[in-house]
């Protein structure tokens, strides 16, 4: 069925191109995606590239005939990571007919959860927001759609177990920013420590993480076998640099998803060689989707930002979020017909089965219950010039992850 619909979509796209591309795409009602993100405050380290990837992907879809002829119009606004500005932009976008919203900011999405559930608006929270929103029965309109932080911690732990000499008897240090985000992997890692018999200690450093030396001298005294670093933005570079300075081998440093090319350049490309990270989406331009973007968007000069960002880690994450969303919209339109509403789009998301954006990402399957999509990812390593995958896509310890999800989702239901 999936292949058939993809075939149909491809056929429609080709036909649209043949019949005069945009002219036909413009005839049908546009679909509005609201990308209300933080371009000026906290998430600047990722949002520019991420949003560029989203825009370029949507442009590529529009250039190749839209979704069954419907063009997608993004609504892009800056929220400066402030909930009240996010809510204003959200209410405005809702009035303009948006069916999907992506805040890409944990504080704003958390403040918006109740509203999207009430307004029947799809909110995608890839790699941010509430992890327990993976429970689709409690959060019908919220789609984390990629591995939650709990799943990421599980994947990293599993990697140590399989490829770095097992977990038993090891000493693992979790060095994290002192915020709810930094503390998020703790419950999963604690459960794993009990189950697998390793020692876990967490070392928080104060936000925003530009100064961590005191924390790392503690880490050094602890003499860990492996270090998992959990932060974002500038703090990550400081973590890597301090870890290496304190005698931790690069190979033993594992990071949450937020470690990218820019960080490697700032730390020093050769210096950082061997550091590993969790990866949710493939990197580089060597993917069919990226090749299409280059052909239809970048080469004709329609790109929305600097060319050197194309194919970077965060750019590709942006592409992947929109690929899943467009696929959901396509399935929803095929099944329920136009006009697209939040409720139809939600059911479109829940029909996604084994979608991998032509090899860009692990196969995602979203169901009525599971809005995380399996929690797949892989570990990649900085080889001095690029991020190189060292494992295949896999997921790990989903039983522990789902225990967490269900526990928090239950607390959310009670709290309402």
């Amino acid at each position, binding site marked *: 069925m999936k292949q058939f619909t993809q075939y149909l979509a491809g056929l429609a796209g080709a036909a649209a191109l043949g019949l005069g591309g945009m002219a036909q795409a413009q005839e049908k009602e546009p679909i509005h995606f609201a990308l209300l993100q933080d371009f000026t405050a906290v998430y600047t380290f990722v949002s520019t590239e991420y949003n560029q990837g989203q825009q370029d992907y949507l442009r590529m879809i529009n250039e190749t005939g839209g979704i069954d002829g419907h063009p997608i119009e993004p609504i892009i606004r800056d929220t400066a990571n402030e909930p009240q500005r996010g809510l204003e932009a959200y209410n405005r976008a809702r009035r303009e007919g948006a069916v999907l919203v992506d805040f890409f900011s944990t504080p704003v999405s958390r403040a918006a959860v109740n509203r999207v559930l009430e307004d029947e608006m799809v909110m995608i929270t890839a790699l941010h927001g509430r992890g327990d929103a993976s429970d689709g029965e409690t959060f019908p309109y919220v789609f984390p759609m990629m591995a939650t932080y709990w799943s990421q911690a599980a994947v990293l732990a599993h990697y140590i177990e399989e490829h770095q000499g097992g977990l038993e008897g090891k000493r693992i240090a979790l060095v994290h920013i002192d915020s709810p985000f930094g503390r998020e992997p703790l419950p999963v890692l604690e459960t794993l420590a009990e189950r697998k018999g390793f020692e876990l200690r967490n070392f928080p450093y104060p936000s925003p993480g530009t100064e961590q030396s005191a924390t790392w001298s503690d880490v050094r005294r602890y003499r860990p076998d492996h270090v998992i670093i959990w932060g974002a933005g500038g703090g990550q570079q400081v973590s890597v640099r301090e870890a290496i300075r304190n005698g931790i081998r690069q190979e033993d440093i594992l990071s949450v998803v937020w470690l990218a090319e820019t960080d490697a350049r700032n730390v020093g490309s050769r210096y950082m060689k061997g550091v590993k990270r969790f990866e949710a989406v493939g990197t580089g331009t060597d993917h069919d989707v990226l090749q299409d973007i280059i052909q239809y968007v970048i080469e004709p000069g329609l790109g929305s930002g600097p060319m050197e960002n194309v194919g970077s880690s965060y750019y590709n994450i942006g592409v992947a979020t929109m690929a899943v969303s467009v696929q959901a919209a396509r399935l929803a339109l095929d099944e329920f017909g136009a006009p697209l509403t939040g409720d139809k789009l939600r059911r479109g998301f829940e029909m996604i089965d084994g979608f991998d954006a032509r090899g860009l990402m692990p196969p995602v399957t979203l169901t009525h219950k599971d809005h995380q999509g399996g929690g797949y990812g892989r570990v990649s390593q900085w080889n001095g010039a690029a991020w190189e995958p060292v494992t295949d896509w896999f997921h790990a310890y989903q039983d522990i992850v789902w225990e967490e999800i269900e526990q928090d989702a239950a607390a959310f239901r009670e709290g*309402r």
Partner: protein
Amino acid sequence: MFYRLSGIKHTRYVSARALWPIPADRRILYVLGALALLAPVLLSDLYLTSYMLPWLIWTAAALSLTLLMGMAGQLHFGFAAVLAIGAYTSIHLTRAGVPFELALLGAGLSSAVIGSAFGAAALRVKGLYLVMATLSMQYLVEWVIVNVPAISGGAQATLNTPDVRFLFVPLQSDASLYYMALLWTVVVTLLLLNIRRSSFGRALVAVRDKDFAAAVIGVNPVRFKLLAFFVSSFLGGVTGAILAFCYYQAVTPEQFGFNVSIQLVAMVLVGGLGSVIGAYLGAGFVLLLPILLTNLLAGAAQIDWLPISFNLIAHIPLMVYGALIIGVILFEPLGLAKIYDNLRKYFLVWPFRHTQS
């Protein structure tokens, strides 16, 4: 002419000391009051919930801080923490089954107690040193909230506000939430206006202008500094609860970060230190102007007036906003309230340039 003064003769102290002795001021207030009451009918839900509601609540917060910074002269750079204490107290109290009315009081009291504990530092230090002491409050409170899951609400660090009623009215519809916020803001406004003309207010001003001079004329600075912190934190705590229940409906520690404290200080300063109407104008300026600028530019970009990257478009409002703040401070260092005051004074004697005396 517009603010006609001739023929208005106050023959009793009561009328001379009224909050608004000039009929023209009262008339403006009646109109504004009527507009505020009719806002749910006049405005679409977008403008009601995204502009009016946060503006009113932030005005109440700025007014609470005005009492402390403007009237009593005590700098406070951790006022978001005061709001946070109120918000978390009210949520935990209502979750435990306490009625909302009492939870509001509890929110105010807990903020007042913790706020005055930190305010006690004001008895020893002044100026920049007090800024440091209140800054420590901001970080300590934030740290406690983040690190005590029982307060922050577990791994997700998000607490939803339960459905509540205020005086038998369920707070669910947009209009009811708006009226609740309006009621509280009006209460705070009237309270501040009245404090200003009471002996308490005059004592605060005396302490602000010179605390040992105040002591010489018989005003106990210790007592009044602490009282200023207590009252201001009480109002801030209740405002925090209103903010949580009427606006956010889900509370996370990030909503009360250091940047919010700075925004509140900016509201008080841009509006005009110690002015009540300044709090309204300052809150509007700091809260709504960036939103308006962002929408304006995005609109211009959409109709291809601005062929520049979205990243630059996102940053232009910041530049304009910064330039406007500098402009206000250069043009009128006493704040937006002073600009309003100048206009009003101009019309008091219009068509003449100035009065004889």
